[in-house]
């Protein structure tokens, strides 16, 4: 299989380019704006869906916004939140969050009409599978690569946005999207109805919904049908370029996802978390360790990183 052989050097060359590339953030420059709460819906005991009305340039899947409480209310700093959906024409921005800390608990008490300070859209977005596939699509008869989205716990939001965009791509040019959502228990799988993908798979640690496994276990069980590395898709006669993995979730899950991607030779992009103050790359606070003892700022060079660039022994999440 000739293409297989050439795949390795191509991948490493691409990796080198990415590692050396300056932190270019595609998309519109961020704005500071006032966001008004349209709806703040409780999805479970601690999971919420926030619908904001805000005039903000179009966000791309994987990008985030900083949200802050107005005038003197604690907490002091704005907090980063992944964008789950954004429709600039309706000025509608959707954020999914869990009321876990002091800031998000205050957020959970906001009612329609309340106002928040917003900075966004920020950060680097998820690249589309066609841009990163090991072998260009045209070599494979024009078939777009498979996107495999792996979401753990609260990590579903940016991947829902990604799947939504892929679905709306011109003529399905983004290729098929497999969405894997994992949680501890069924009650935490709060956004299943919002996932629009070619196929959706679910796992829970306690087996109360879907496969009783971690989401990484679920991923491993699905590989082969189709084979993610070869992209041989079911009844299709033409071969697809290999799959591209996308991950968002807890640190441990992302670490495992990376190991898996590496073992299968698949490109993998993950969204990382860090405590953040400015969101713009000025305060240098949100550094994570990359391979080669280098630091990168999650707000500017991330939050989306190619997983092979991350020093996983050092990453602990936010």
């Amino acid at each position: 299989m000739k293409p297989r052989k050439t795949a390795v050097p191509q991948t490493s060359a691409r990796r080198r380019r990415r590692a050396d590339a300056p932190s270019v953030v595609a998309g519109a420059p961020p704005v500071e704006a006032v966001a008004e709460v349209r709806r703040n819906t409780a999805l479970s005991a601690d999971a919420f869906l926030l619908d904001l009305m805000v005039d903000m340039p179009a966000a791309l899947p994987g990008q985030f916004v900083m949200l802050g409480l107005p005038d003197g209310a604690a907490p002091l700093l704005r907090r980063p939140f992944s964008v789950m959906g954004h429709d600039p024409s309706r000025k509608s921005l959707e954020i999914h969050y869990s009321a876990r800390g002091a800031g998000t608990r205050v957020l959970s008490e906001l009612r329609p009409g309340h106002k928040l300070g917003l900075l966004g859209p920020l950060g680097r977005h998820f690249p589309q599978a066609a841009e990163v596939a090991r072998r260009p699509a045209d070599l494979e008869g024009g078939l777009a690569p498979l996107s495999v989205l792996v979401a753990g716990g609260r990590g579903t939001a940016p991947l829902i946005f990604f799947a939504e965009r892929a679905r709306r791509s011109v003529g399905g040019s983004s290729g098929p999207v497999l969405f894997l959502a994992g949680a501890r228990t069924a009650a935490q799988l709060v956004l299943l109805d919002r996932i629009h993908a070619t196929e959706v798979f679910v796992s829970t640690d306690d087996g109360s919904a879907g496969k009783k496994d971690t989401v990484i276990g679920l991923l491993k069980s699905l590989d082969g049908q189709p084979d993610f590395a070869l992209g041989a898709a079911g009844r299709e006669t033409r071969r697809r370029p290999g799959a591209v993995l996308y991950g968002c979730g807890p640190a441990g899950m992302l670490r495992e996802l990376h190991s898996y991607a590496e073992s299968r030779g698949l490109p993998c992009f993950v969204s990382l978390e860090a405590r953040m103050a400015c969101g713009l790359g000025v305060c240098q606070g949100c550094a994570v360790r990359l391979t080669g003892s280098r630091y990168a700022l999650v707000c500017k060079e991330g939050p989306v990183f190619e997983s092979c660039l991350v020093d996983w022994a050092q990453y602990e999440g936010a």
Partner: protein
Amino acid sequence: MSRQRRESTTPAQGRRGSRGRPARSVSAGAGGARLPDLSVRIAGLRLSTPVLLASGVAGYGEEMGEVVDLNRVGAIVTKTLTPEERAGNPPPRLFETPAGLMNNIGLANVGLEGFLAEVLPQLKRHRTRIVVSVGGFSLRDYEKVLASVDAAGGAHAFEINVSCPNVRAGGIHFGCSASRAARVVRALRPLTALPLLVKLTPNVTDIGSVAAACVSEGADGLTVANTYTALAVDLRTRRPRLGGVTGGLSGPAVKPLSLAKVWEVTSRVKAPVIACGGISTAEDALEYIVVGATAVQVGTACFRSFKTPELIVNGIIAYMKENSLSSLQELRGTMTLAPAE
């Protein structure tokens, strides 16, 4: 000096309102009323407003320029520059406390070479004043950075950082004793004709004596103060919250503390003081000025909204109008210790 003189004789052209007296831009209404003058002078350096962006929050001006009109601030103080590029300290680097922010960044910066090649040319494009924050781990480091930036041109003043609490050698080591701080100023003073400010640490017993020592060696002004050494512990893991163990505390929590430090310094020396510590409103800034500060720096509050410096400028203008003040000079150091009648 010639630059300032030229500027003060520039005719009041409305289209350049953000450069000159900001009062012009609010001249509507109150026909003929005297417009407040927000400009201040620090050792010959004229700032169009008394509100500066503190070191570390403005980066090198470029990143923030996307969301802030940098020309509405009196000056930008750059992220502290050291001779070599620094990656910074291990994460986590930030932890929020009630009304405060702890940081342990560790002077992450591009280094002298990168600064001169890439940052300084960008900074020069702004009309606002540029204060370059100078750091180092030895006297030689400070000398090298200051002399190189001075030679390159483009900076309007220097702020000597002898107060970073997050690096092992250098930094705060120099700022913790009057004699060591004096030694730094003595070494740097002959190397530049530009205003030389020294950013002091509040983590000392007698900040007044450190300030006096700096001034006696030729410092033109003092920035009071850097952050307060602080510690936070995660009870679950019993580990420090920050990768570098301790960090520097900033934000509204430290305002009363730094207000006292500014009072100590202005009671001791005549040189202008730039207050820095928890300023997030015009009232905060005005309190510092009443205690004796000439100008103020805004830091942590920018992370809540990058419009904060502009709102503070607007608030100061409103206060001056309300109290019929034509210049901030009339307000500076007017705190009275006598009990109210």
